[in-house]
């Protein structure tokens, strides 16, 4: 990230996505605000019933072609296991700890629209706003 610092209150978006179909469609968990950018800094996902088929479940922005913040491999999303976004394996980070484009929200979506297995996905995403 650039050699600049961002200091802000830490916020958290928590909830449950009720089906794999919804994850495949993508669910906006933090709505866009035209004057704000979001910075994802941590959190976790938890699948009820193990996730399968897709490569990952991603936390992204809401651009048409989503910018990935963190991608959690489905192998980390075993039934009931909390899968931290900061795990030492099975997670890749792209725009993480750095600001998304202003005016974009945050979304959870499978990487390929083909997620199976998951009957519900709990999430807790820690983020800052600029």
């Amino acid at each position, binding site marked *: 990230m650039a050699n600049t610092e961002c200091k802000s209150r830490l916020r958290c978006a928590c909830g449950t996505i009720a089906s794999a179909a919804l994850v495949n469609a993508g669910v906006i968990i933090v709505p866009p605000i035209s004057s704000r950018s979001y910075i994802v800094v941590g959190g976790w996902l938890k699948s009820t019933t193990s996730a399968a088929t897709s490569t990952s479940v991603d936390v992204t922005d809401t651009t048409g072609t989503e910018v990935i913040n963190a991608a959690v491999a489905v192998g980390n999303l075993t039934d009931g296991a909390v899968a931290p976004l900061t795990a030492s394996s099975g997670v890749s980070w792209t725009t993480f700890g750095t600001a998304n484009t202003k005016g974009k929200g945050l979304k959870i979506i499978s990487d390929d629209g083909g997620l199976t297995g998951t009957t519900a996905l709990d999430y807790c995403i820690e983020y*800052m706003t600029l």
Partner: protein
Amino acid sequence: MAANTTRRSRVKCITGNATLAEVKAGKIILPKFSGQYIIVGGWMRALAVNAAGADSINISDTTATPVVGVAIAVGALTAGALVDFDAAANVTRTTYGAAFAAGKGLQILDAGAGALSGCTSVDFCIKYTTVNTA
């Protein structure tokens, strides 16, 4: 932390980047104020090249002999790999979830017999609370 002591406060977060030279010199990331900082979480990652040379990269206070909050073993700071302060390995938590002395800031700096080398810079994210002391 003192036994049976509960502190309740808003959690704040600072993210940023420190160059290799800045880490070696010690870069202040939170300014000193009259109260106290408490680190409650965060992560660090080396960029471009694996970190080497030093023993660890620490988040410490700004005392002349810095009080260590969290020390991340350099061996864990491979290029691009994010190391959580709560990780089970390669992280030593000393003043963590507990207050530093009043009137001190927080800094990122290397530690060990050798100087930090390798990585071009280090990203950091510090989750913290503050305690106002009268």
